[in-house]
């Protein structure tokens, strides 16, 4: 295609429209087009453009991807791969300097993602210490996060599950770690800002955060500027969230009609399903997946979404496992979920994970990734230019 010089000068597209066009491109193309000119390099590298590009991508369900960490590799699944047929993920080459993902004893890899970035935690179960890294799988850039300077001795405190979220008020991604110091029961939260690249610690209102004493602690969920924890308060399920802009904890009421205590028909005893619920997201809403029912033999999994208030989305059969909702298909008919199966060897339970897709209209379940994996972690992310 050849355009003569005279024509070129006469019909140039104004800058604001060039920006509009560029904001529709995939990250791979944009990284390449940084080489077009200095102006384009500056534009594509700018925070402002990253924000507008992300805003457009987050409205486009096709820009949703899933990153999966198995016991020994990382796989990526694009939107076309999900919600179609059973597929294998694309292997991703990862080489994080000073951050060994596998092979270390007593170290587990945990994920959290939000607004185009993925936060990886290496948690040493023995030392009870954590290290963090923030990664953008689309631009392939990452940053090792420095250790918090004022972390108390890990033996004298208990850290709750970390969260990773986006603060709309400051256009900043943050890592949060609530913790509790024994024996005085003082609750604090460490917050890392990716923008300032520093940690800070603030005190938490004493009544606000509850002890997560579940042995298989569900992950945190990020949704609309807040990070949610599944918790327990006096034996009842409780949802606690931290608003990143206000930096305050709140409690979200449990949907009233959902029974968390199911009577065991024969013995008449209460069978608590407080261990059988998970938080996730459905589109841009918080989604609760809970195992409930009239009796122990009559269980089902209900999906509720938080809009103005809790609204029931669907009921699917309970097949003995706990499901974490991860993302919804374009038409809202299918939900990608992470299934947790617990296998008991004697008294110890081991978790096995599987990625499945539930069709909410015909109640069918399809496996996305092969076999249940004892160490699979998965997170969704939208293509973005944050962190280049």
């Amino acid at each position: 295609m050849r355009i003569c010089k005279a024509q070129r000068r006469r019909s140039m597209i104004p800058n604001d429209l060039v920006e509009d066009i560029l904001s529709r491109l995939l990250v791979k193309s944009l990284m390449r087009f940084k080489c077009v000119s200095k102006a384009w390099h500056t534009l594509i590298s700018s925070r402002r453009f990253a924000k507008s590009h992300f805003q457009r991508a987050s409205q486009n369900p096709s820009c949703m991807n899933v990153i999966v960490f198995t016991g020994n590799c990382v796989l990526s699944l694009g939107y076309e791969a999900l919600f179609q047929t059973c597929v294998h993920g694309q292997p991703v080459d990862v080489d994080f300097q000073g951050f060994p993902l596998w092979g270390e004893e007593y170290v587990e890899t945990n994920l959290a993602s939000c607004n185009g970035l993925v936060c990886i935690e290496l948690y040493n179960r023995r030392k009870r210490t954590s290290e963090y890294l923030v990664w953008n799988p689309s631009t392939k850039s990452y940053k090792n996060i420095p250790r918090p300077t004022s972390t108390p001795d890990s033996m004298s405190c208990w850290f709750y599950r970390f969260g990773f979220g986006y603060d709309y008020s400051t256009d900043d991604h943050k890592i949060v770690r609530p913790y509790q110091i024994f024996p005085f029961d003082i609750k604090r939260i460490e917050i890392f800002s990716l923008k300032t690249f520093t940690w800070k610690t603030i005190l938490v209102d004493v009544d606000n955060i509850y002890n997560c004493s579940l042995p298989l602690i569900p992950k945190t969920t990020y949704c609309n500027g807040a990070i949610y924890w599944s918790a327990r308060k006096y034996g009842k399920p409780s949802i606690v969230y931290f608003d990143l802009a206000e930096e305050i904890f709140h409690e979200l009421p449990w949907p009233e009609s959902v029974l968390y205590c199911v009577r065991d028909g024969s013995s008449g005893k209460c069978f608590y399903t407080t261990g059988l619920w998970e938080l996730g997201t459905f589109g841009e809403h918080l989604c609760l997946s809970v195992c409930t029912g009239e009796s122990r033999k009559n269980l089902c999994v209900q999906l509720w979404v938080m809009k103005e208030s809790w609204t029931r989305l669907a009921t699917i059969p309970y097949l003995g496992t706990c499901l974490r909702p991860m993302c919804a298909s374009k038409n809202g008919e299918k939900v990608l979920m992470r299934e947790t199966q617990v296998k008991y060897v004697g008294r110890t339970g081991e978790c096995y994970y599987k990625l499945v897709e539930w069709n909410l209209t015909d109640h069918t379940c399809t496996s996305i990734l092969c076999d249940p994996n004892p160490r699979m972690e998965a997170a969704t992310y939208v293509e973005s230019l944050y962190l280049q």
Partner: protein
Amino acid sequence: MKFCTVKQYFDDENNNNVTNGIATTVIPLPNKHLKIKANNKEMEQYEQELLRNVMPQELTKLILAANYLNFKEALDFFCRTVANAIQNKSVDYVRKFFGLESDFEPGEEEKLCKEFAWSFEGVDED
């Protein structure tokens, strides 16, 4: 609002060399939009038909026309089309399309290409 600027557009001397193609492409869009606004798929098909015979460089003219006429739906559609057209193209192709020239220092551009080598994989041949 859309229609009164059309007359202005053609009266404006600088736009005298607008080809008939622009008029036949851009002008009918508002009516068609109103008729089949409810059905996105139909609109998509209509839009694909419309642009099947339009060369990429013509798109620039269409964008400028739609911008002048302040016709948002057409502008959105044309920008989307350009984005799809350049998505998998080389740096040189994109420069020619937008009428740009490289203003990097010698060696700077090679450095960038090396840094983002992975983004050059699978790019269409010029």
